[in-house]
């Protein structure tokens, strides 16, 4: 049996560090592939970490409550008689220094939380300068090598900078401008008596939102298309469906999810991502459904929504939202959406516009279903109306495309039997 290095897994696209909540196995415990080893808190959720490979959990290098960058060795699994000293020698002594000696080959994508060690167990590569490593582990930041080094030395987060080089590449002047414009954020301070404010430390989720959203809003040219949808028939249909015994309860949002999934199939240009040199048109609709939490917002992904019935959508999205609230989402449920829906209808919101989650090409912001006076024939009546606003990445699509998509969504919701066929 090989020695298995257990590293901090990368559980979401944006994840850089993870916090160990607790070990579910102790040193000396026998571990089989698939066993849950530990619980890890990422920026978005608490995730259970499975073991790959079998053996005895020989050494635990990260204590509960401690954080480690993605790819850092946090435990070693091996047979009791195997020599793990080389693996341990190559490991950082404390999590605090882990970033500096993070091996260059840290897994970039890690649906496999525990990677088997290379055979024979080689000493870790010579420590790389912090900058190169930090940048490598960050993934898709387009920056010059010099910009990366200066950023690392001046504490500038490259992902917050818009590049001015060719193709938006971040070059030295961008980093230097950022370093002088906004000195690295001072450590958060606790509330002090006598001071009229308090600085609350960012929760991991808030930190990610703070980092990611400017990256969308600034470089992604947003435009917005708003439409009003008559929800009377959808409302009636929902009541009829919910009156059926033994069927899951359907929410307005489920109807919207279904309508969007079907409309996306009809308008693949909206189900698309800008990729610099090309536009990727997705053949399947994975819908991100924004869920508000106390400490922020999370958008679990309902995969293959286009192939799911209303009932399936209702059950699965409720379950996703539930687990999101309890921070029990799986890594695959945290990324990979091709389109998102943000619904603030339950908060008595007339209409709003949402910020696109790159690399998605659009997001639908949904307001409340209101009873309002409407023109019926030559007179006035009362109707249920809902306003939705589609935020579109103009690099991917134009106004007319977004509007046609909204027309389809509107038609599906206004003639809701279409959602059932």
């Amino acid at each position: 049996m090989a020695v298995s290095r257990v590293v901090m897994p990368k559980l979401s696209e944006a994840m850089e560090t993870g916090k160990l909540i607790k070990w579910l196995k102790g040193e000396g415990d026998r571990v089989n592939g698939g066993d849950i080893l530990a619980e890890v808190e990422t920026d978005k959720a608490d995730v259970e970490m499975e073991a790959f490979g079998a053996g005895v959990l020989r050494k635990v290098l990260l204590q509960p409550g401690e954080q480690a960058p993605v790819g850092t060795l946090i435990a070693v699994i091996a047979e009791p008689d195997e020599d793990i000293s080389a693996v341990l020698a190559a490991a950082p002594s404390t999590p605090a220094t882990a970033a500096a000696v993070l091996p260059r080959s840290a897994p970039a994508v890690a649906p496999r939380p525990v990677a088997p060690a290379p055979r024979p167990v080689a000493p870790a590569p010579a420590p790389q300068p912090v900058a190169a490593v930090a940048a490598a582990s960050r993934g898709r930041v387009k920056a010059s090598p010099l910009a990366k080094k200066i950023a690392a030395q001046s504490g500038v987060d490259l992902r917050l900078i818009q590049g001015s080089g060719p193709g938006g590449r971040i070059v030295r002047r961008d980093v230097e401008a950022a370093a002088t414009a906004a000195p690295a954020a001072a450590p958060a301070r606790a509330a002090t008596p006598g001071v009229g404010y308090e600085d609350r430390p960012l929760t991991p989720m808030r930190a990610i939102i703070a980092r990611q959203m400017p990256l969308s809003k600034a470089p992604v040219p947003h435009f917005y298309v708003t439409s009003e949808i008559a929800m009377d028939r959808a409302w009636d249909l929902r009541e009829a469906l919910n009156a059926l015994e033994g069927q899951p309860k359907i929410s307005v949002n489920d109807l919207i999810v279904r309508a969007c999934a079907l409309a996306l199939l009809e308008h693949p240009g909206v189900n698309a991502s800008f990729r610099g040199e090309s536009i990727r048109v997705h053949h399947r609709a994975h819908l991100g459904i924004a869920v508000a939490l106390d400490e922020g917002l999370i958008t679990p992904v309902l995969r293959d929504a286009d192939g799911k019935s209303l009932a399936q959508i209702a059950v699965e999205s409720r379950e996703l939202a539930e687990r999101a609230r309890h921070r029990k989402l799986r890594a695959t449920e945290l990324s990979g959406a091709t389109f998102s829906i943000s619904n603030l209808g339950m908060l008595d919101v007339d209409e709003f516009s949402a910020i696109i989650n790159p690399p998605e090409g659009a997001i639908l912001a949904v307001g409340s279903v209101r009873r309002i006076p409407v023109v019926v024939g030559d007179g006035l009546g009362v109707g249920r109306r809902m306003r939705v606003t589609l935020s579109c990445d103009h690099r991917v699509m134009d106004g007319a495309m977004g509007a046609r998509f909204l027309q389809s969504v509107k038609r599906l919701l206004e003639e809701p039997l279409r959602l059932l066929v």
Partner: protein
Amino acid sequence: MPDALKVDLAIVGTGPGGYVAAIRAAQLGLTVAAVEDDRPGGVCLNWGCIPTKALLRNAEVLSLVNHASDFGIHVSGVEADYAEAVRRSRRVADRMAKGVEFLFRKNRITLVPGRGTLTSRGTVEVAGQDGLQTIEARAVLLATGSEPKSLPGIAIDERRVISSNGAVRQERAPRSLVVIGAGAVGVEFADVYAAYGTRVTLLEVLPRVVPIEDEEVSALLARVFSSRGIEIKTGARVAGVRPGGAGVIVETDGGKLEAEQVLMAVGRAAKVRGLGLEALGVALDRGFVKVSPLMETSVTGLYAIGDMAGPPLLAHKAMAEGVVAAEAIAGRTPRPVDYTSVPSCTYCRPQIASLGLTEAKAREGKREVSVGKFPFTASGKAVALGETEGFVKVVADTATGEILGVHIVGPEATEIIHEFAVGRTLEGTLEEIVHTIHAHPTLSEAALEATLAALGQAIHI
């Protein structure tokens, strides 16, 4: 007077800046008229870069033949005909100038022979052999270049006191020559003439030859030149030149020198007179036309590039500016020229190429500097070639590995420099150069080794 010629862009001067701008503008769909009072190609093709490189090649071939016995090849009865060397250089220049004429035809650029003067913002009047021709253009680009300077009170007559213009034309190597100025032009002609047997004295007012280069480069070149019999006098101030003796007597603060000719190589001055700039109120700065990063002068729609638009006075810098100007005029958003990454090349033997800051300049800054140096004596390829004089020297910022300066003296230095230019443009650091596999055996391995040395990791020394 014929009808006015109406074009999108009128370019005055067809040197490397002007002709490149003309072609780029034509590629972008502009109609272009180019005014030239000599042959297309300017000083570079006709009287500068290209013909001197042909002459230097002659000097190199002659030197190789003279050292053939080092390779076990015994040659006798060697006769080097300098007049033929000059004629060859003329043929080379003619061929390149014809190439520019061809490119003009291919890109439908109207060549208007004559001397151009701006009469208003968009009007150029060309005085040619057939009379006056007016060009009306939406934008005008000036690219008139520069001409050799002299010292106060010393007239260049191109007989006793020659400039590079005369040197490149005269079909006879003088028996003795005093070169005033040890910059690129001075050391290149010193090399050519010395190879053909001229007794050369090289004067430089500053403390070292090629004074803009790194000190170690100057020191090496001075040693090699001295070993070849070129007499070098640095820190020498020339008081005057008068006829006498074998031809001219040069008076310096260190005594009198006598020679058949004097080559004045003290620099070049922008050609900004007689163009109508004063009437339009075009701003100048220290004798050069003041331009924006997109090469526009203080007058809207009037652009200037190349030598006339300021240092460094280098053909390739002019070409880069020409592209920027043409693209700006065509409504594009070009990337401005990065003046910190313009390579500078001198084609004497050993060749010199450099980029960025000298070690001394880099150390003037606050940052910590790492220097790596690799001599060609340790390069297999250089030893095989029998060209081991020189080195590659890399100056970098210790903290980031940023390449601050590169100084190469030695065989094909002018070709080796470009990997560093690419590196700087991409904002690469020492590590990216080091991670680039260099073919073996090549002279460029010295670039790799010098970079490794700056990181304290050189393998072959």
